């Protein structure tokens, strides 16, 4: 690998997921992030009640992300061979967990649930 630029990186990801799926995922991630920022600005506070559910969903996100990468790259857990593999694996799981937490928090804020719909806690 001689040099790595932003356009190379985009090309790599287009190759991984296919152009359509990749840009759909980028759009989805952008929408969710915007939604998250919107509810933060709207509520002017982080609701720890909402965060409880968000945090509980994090392991689910981690597992889903790992499963997705493994299927997309025809890999298995037993293929992890060295420290760098573990780091990549954990990074995938971490990204999945954080992404899921943001998604759940945002959805709960936008759609609401009986548990968290009452006035914000003090």
């Amino acid at each position, binding site marked *: 690998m001689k040099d790595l630029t932003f356009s190379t990186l985009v090309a790599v990801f287009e190759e991984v997921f296919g152009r359509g799926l990749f840009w759909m995922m980028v759009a989805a991630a952008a929408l969710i992030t915007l939604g998250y920022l919107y509810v933060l600005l709207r509520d002017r506070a982080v609701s720890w009640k909402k965060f409880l559910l968000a945090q509980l969903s994090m392991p689910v996100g981690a597992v889903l992300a790992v499963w997705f990468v493994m299927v997309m790259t025809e890999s298995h857990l037993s293929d992890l*061979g060295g420290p*760098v593999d573990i780091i*990549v694996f954990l990074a995938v799981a971490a990204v999945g967990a954080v992404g899921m937490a943001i998604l759940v928090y945002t959805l709960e804020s936008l759609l609401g649930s009986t548990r968290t719909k009452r006035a914000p806690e003090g």
Partner: protein
Amino acid sequence: MERRQFLSLALGGGAATLAAAGRPAEAAPVRTSARIVIIGAGAAGTALANRLTRRLDGAQITIIDPRQQHLYQPGLSLVAAGLKPSSYVVSDTAQWLPSGVTWLPERVAAVDAEAKTVATEGGQMLPYDWLVVASGLLLDHDAIEGFSLDMVGENGLGALYAGPEHAARTWAAASKFIEEGGTALFTRPATEMKCAGAPLKHAFLIDDIARRAGSASKTNMVYLAPQGVLFSVPIVAEKVRMLIGERGIDTQFNQTLKSIDAGARRATFTSETGGETEMDYDYLQVIPPQRAPDFVRQSGLSWADRWVDQGWIEVDPATLRHRRYPEIFAVGDIAGVPKGKTAASVKWQVPVVEDHLVGAIEGREGSQTYNGYTSCPLITRVGRAMLVEFDYQNNLTPSFPGIIAPLEELWISWLMKEVALKATYNAMLRGRA
């Protein structure tokens, strides 16, 4: 710099790194009316054409190649193991060529290095000021007696180098073998060859897929090489010897495939001393001798005292400039250098040729040199590979020292081969990597 960029990205460095990773400002194009002819629109010719159009203003660049299809050859190993469809390696030649370059879809008949002209089989005569030969090489399937390409896919015959359709038919033959069991013979030629790791990858992949299919007990695998070692780089050869031993693949050295009897499924091998050995097979991977195209040898561009049966072009190994005709360069498989008939080599060779060519047009000496770098993501099973990188001196030259160990079977190296390599290759074709 690029390594650090990669590391910080890999470790989650994120957007700040990306923003800082912009390309350095490019020098203003050099004004010239030079006539440049590039023979071959494969990986090397296409990448160079794209780079030259950005570096030169007013040059008349002609690229000669009759092939309408561009092949991503590093993908053939994946097609031949059923991991990708044949369409994975095929694209249109035209889509990669820059505007401003004239594409002449003809075959080259001869180069006259004294008169500085290239003649095509269609009868055109192109004068040049600078010539870059990136013609690639010939797979000499006819050299294997009793074998022809139309047999591939039937009777247990595979030939993954021959192209996308043949790689797909190779997988048809290999998967039938995995189902039914028997003896598989994996061969390689005595000549220099494209990606010397590919025959090993194929053996490792077929073995792995057979194991997963539960066929290990009824399959017997033999790897036969004309050489006395498994890989030309000693430290890699030892590692491969250990791996292939662990996998229970037999090895036989000093055996060159001479002929086959396709009906009887029997292959004949010769040894250096001339002795012949016959072996029955249920699956045979044929990788034929590889040589320079006829026009190269007939035009007097080849080495006179090295690789005389193969005809690679006589270039300085550091600059890739012809040793007798300074206005000629050779890049890619056709270059007569001791290592590196791979896309990774092309990636490192092309900027060197660009530097010396543009320098010569400007009336200065180029400063970049090629150290023989090549790389091979040596797949050892579906999901794992060793990223092997080395130079002319057989030194390991790891791109990510301390992170991606060169002789370790890693998942990340597989991800690179399976996922990142084609995108990087495409970026290289466009002259952007």
